[in-house]
């Protein structure tokens, strides 16, 4: 019973976090800041949802596979984000920076 309530909470909050992240990729002004919003869905949303599913699965092979899915996401999503940002920077896409740039920053 408690487990059911817990996974209710986890699944619903995971879904909401996912929607917030998707709103974020429309709200933020440029590509680099949108990456942060996309990062939410890769990390917290996946954690909440998969944890909620593991609670429902119990201790068996299904739970192991869910943990495995989480590990894949955990290892691949930062690699993808970094490669994407690196590629964008190398192609000359300038981020909309607010105040300090790199050169100012490295001087102080």
């Amino acid at each position, binding site marked *: 019973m408690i487990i059911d309530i817990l996974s209710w909470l986890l699944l619903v909050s995971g879904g909401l976090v996912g929607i917030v992240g998707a709103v974020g990729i429309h709200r933020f002004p440029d590509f680099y800041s949108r990456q942060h919003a996309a990062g939410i869905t890769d990390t917290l949303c996946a954690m909440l949802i998969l944890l909620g599913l593991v609670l429902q699965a119990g201790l068996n092979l299904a739970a192991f596979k*869910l943990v495995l*899915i989480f590990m894949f996401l955990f290892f691949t999503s930062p690699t993808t984000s970094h490669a994407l940002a690196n590629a964008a920077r190398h192609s000359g896409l300038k981020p909309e920076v607010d105040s300090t740039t790199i050169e100012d920053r490295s001087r102080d």
Partner: protein
Amino acid sequence: MLLENYLMFVAASLAFLVTLGLALARALMGPTVYDRIAAINMFGTKTVLLIAVLAFLSGRMDLLDIALVYALINFIGVVAVLKLVVYGDFHSSGKDITKPVKVDQR
């Protein structure tokens, strides 16, 4: 299955459908090619999670295997696309884009 448990998977999958729609809109609009790639990466992640929830919704645990395959294929696809975008070629040089590259333009 209990009705309450069924309903929570329903709620999660509905939330995922909304997220998929928003990500699809970004992929269609996306001003730069990188916006599109990021949106597709997000779309893939969400599909993996949606399939995992669907496995519990329909009670078929072999769907989790497909979610696993998708998580891997999404990664490989995105990295392949990036490699092409950066080098314009799959074998123009032995370098990997995930390796540190020298700063030449700033």
